[in-house]
């Protein structure tokens, strides 16, 4: 099951395990501001093939949206 993490854990996973960070909000919100290096994987129109193409199964993946939505 997925783990639910805070900011410090995100930073640790990126630094120590080369985690991929992915924003799941729509394009306009991603373009407005996103975490450094974050990829865009919108939940609306979720595309499994794109997900598999963008993400590396050997690296942890951290998703986020705006806040507790």
């Amino acid at each position, binding site marked *: 099951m997925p*783990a639910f993490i805070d900011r410090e854990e995100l930073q640790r996973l990126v630094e120590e395990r080369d985690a991929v960070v992915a924003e799941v909000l729509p394009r306009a919100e991603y373009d407005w501001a996103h975490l*450094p290096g974050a990829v865009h994987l919108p939940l609306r129109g979720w595309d499994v093939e794109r997900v598999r193409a963008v*993400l590396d199964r050997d690296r942890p993946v951290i998703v*986020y*949206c705006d806040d507790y939505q």
Partner: protein
Amino acid sequence: MSPRAAWRLDSLGFDAYDYVAGKADWLAFGLAYEGDAQLAGSVLATDVPTCGFRDQLGDVRAVLEESRFGQVVALNGEGIVMGRLTRDALAAPKDTTVDALMREGPATVRPSEELGRLLQRMRCAGIDGILVTRSDGRLLGLLERDRGERAVGDGT
């Protein structure tokens, strides 16, 4: 939204995590971001002078007199904003503590505030500068309205 995405990734066999507090938390903590947003944290003056709130006036007098901001921000040992000392405090005896002289509870904003809207509120309220703190109360700097307006005008 992100919990659903995390579960979908999990079902596809990925080692999935959900940063539950999300972008709002990240930006309110004043961390770096990419994108088009113009946020308060991007145009801060970070050289606003500070002192300890238990310091004595004599220790900070020179800094206060020379501050181009007309103030010194009083912090506790963790860098949390406790108040601000303005030049009207200079008349007090030098052994008076900053704690006794400072204006407590100054208005602060988060670095994640959209710059244009914040500047509009500052104009309406006649405020030339406002302290910017992280979501944990630590000082990041001071947003000067004229500097912010130049940044908005430049699109930088």
